[in-house]
């Protein structure tokens, strides 16, 4: 086997790793969409907000310090302490649960039974509002997020695979962070599946996703389930925020990863957790392979649009996605 073959495999591996991150964001969308029929445009901003909050808490930043300083003429910026990563993650999760509760209490509880497009518009509003709040709370500068995850190429993998491809091949080049992200995503999905299949709340969640009226009749509080679902989506956003933040810094363009999740959802179906995973992997591998093989011939930068073209093809031939529930119209 020539070195080219192994480079192709390396491209596929890197594509899989990128796909895992897409899948993480898509997962948050699926959770909320399944349970409440809301397409949550704010999922990407939630990831950004979670990452901002995490960095802010870890570095002991004073929230709203710009605002406070401007109003009171003070010069406070941080508390002067550092919070350990694990504790900061837990505190951030508390913030995300609080956020879920507020969103349900002040927005979506009042929109029950509205058209999906109205709910969608509400999430767009929520996205920009949350982005503004994030800016106001933690400032708009780019921050580095270091929760102690390993970074850089894995030398171990590189050295131990170098023998495969002869003299021209120096071993697979794989970022350690990507490996960690893949493992975390796998654990996260396993936990979510176990939660939804085997626990009381998980069963209630599936029930609400299936039929609101029937869920009410067996004694399930829709409000509670929706807060739970938004909290779970907040948790997924936090994980995605940590991974993306550690990879490329916490900056406001992070919220745009939501747009990367769209083709993943079209591919995998809006209601399927395995679909989000597989869809993410296909998009990740597809765009990396396409860029590697076809990109150089047509001037590159295919990663920006490849995913959408793939998703469009899917929309034409299989509108419900790979794993989505089949659309059957009874006449």
């Amino acid at each position, binding site marked *: 086997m020539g070195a080219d073959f192994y480079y192709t495999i390396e491209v596929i591996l890197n594509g899989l790793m990128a796909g895992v991150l897409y899948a993480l964001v898509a997962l948050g969308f699926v959770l909320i969409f399944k349970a409440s029929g809301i397409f949550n445009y704010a999922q990407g901003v939630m990831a950004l907000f979670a990452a901002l909050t995490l960095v802010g808490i870890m570095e002991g930043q004073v929230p709203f310090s710009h605002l406070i300083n401007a109003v009171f003429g003070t010069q406070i910026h941080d508390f002067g302490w550092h919070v350990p990563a694990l504790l900061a993650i837990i505190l951030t999760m508390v913030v995300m649960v609080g956020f879920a509760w507020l969103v349900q209490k002040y927005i979506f509880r009042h929109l029950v039974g509205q058209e999906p497009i109205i709910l969608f518009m509400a999430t767009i509003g929520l996205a920009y509002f949350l982005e503004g709040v994030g800016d106001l709370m933690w400032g708009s500068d780019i921050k580095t997020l270091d929760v102690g995850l390993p970074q850089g190429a894995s030398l171990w993998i590189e050295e131990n695979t170098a023998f495969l491809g002869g003299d021209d091949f120096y071993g697979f080049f794989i970022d350690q962070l990507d490996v960690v992200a893949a493992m975390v995503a796998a654990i996260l999905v396993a936990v979510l599946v176990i939660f939804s299949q085997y626990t009381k709340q998980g069963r209630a969640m599936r029930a609400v996703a299936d039929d609101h009226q029937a869920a009410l009749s*067996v004694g399930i509080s829709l409000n509670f389930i929706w807060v739970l679902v938004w909290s779970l989506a907040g948790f997924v956003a936090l994980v995605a925020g940590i991974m993306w933040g550690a990879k490329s810094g916490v900056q406001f363009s992070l919220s745009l990863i939501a747009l990367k999740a769209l083709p993943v959802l079209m591919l995998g179906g809006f209601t399927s957790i395995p679909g989000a995973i597989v869809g993410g992997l296909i998009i990740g591998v597809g765009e990396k392979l396409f860029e590697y093989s076809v990109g150089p011939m047509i001037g590159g930068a295919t990663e920006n649009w490849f995913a959408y073209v793939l998703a469009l093809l899917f929309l034409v031939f299989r509108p419900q996605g790979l794993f989505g529930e089949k659309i059957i119209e009874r006449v």
Partner: protein
Amino acid sequence: MLDDTESYVTADGRTIGGVVLDLKSITLRFGGVEAIKNISFDIREGEIRAIIGPNGAGKSSMLNVISGFYVPQEGEVWFRGERRPQMKPYEVAQQGIARTFQNIALFEGMSVLDNVMTGRLNKMKTGLWSQALWKGKAEREENENREAVEKIIDFLEIQSIRKTPVGRLPYGLKKRVELARALAAEPTILLLDEPMAGMNVEEKEDMCRFILDVNDEFGTTIALIEHDMGVVMDLSDRVVVMDYGRKIGDGTPDEVRNNQDVIDAYLGVSHD
């Protein structure tokens, strides 16, 4: 007249207890339309109580008032001797009033077993954390609930479709699964909204048998809405007759059958 707390024994040997649900002067309006006009009646423990009447008489609205889906503008609901505050449907369900729907509301994507298990959600006491961590207690509880559910599945003879997704079942079986889910909650009162609508003769006979068996075996109090007069007269201990939102008759099947208002309004005037 019987006192509210007195009990009596029926001809077929079942004991009917005191009043468990008392509806007092219920009025329900939708805008300017009065769907229920000042209706009072009670349901006694252990009885099968039918609500009948022509289309649009307000029967389903009445059931929706009892189960909390509609909030009446006037009147009081008394449950087990206490006045019930305004409640959400899920709170009513938690209190022990289970129901089925005229148009069937099942979780179509879930298996029969999972559907029936949702009926037990309120029987599960373990909190989120021990559930999440899958401690022994949660596991034991799951097993106990599973056992109770299997018993009901056996009882309603739906063992063979336990693992089938509900969406694939024929209409008659869906109705039976919905009954199983309501039963799984071990309700104090079971509300059935047209349990036999749209069924063929055989399916109706089966459903009749199940309703009687449930009442007999578990002593469940049942309130049901039904169109088929023959069925109602065979099944029920007492019947409420509604017409245009009013109550026009209330009593045993025989009393109701001989009530002139009921004959005129619902059964039609005899031609011979």
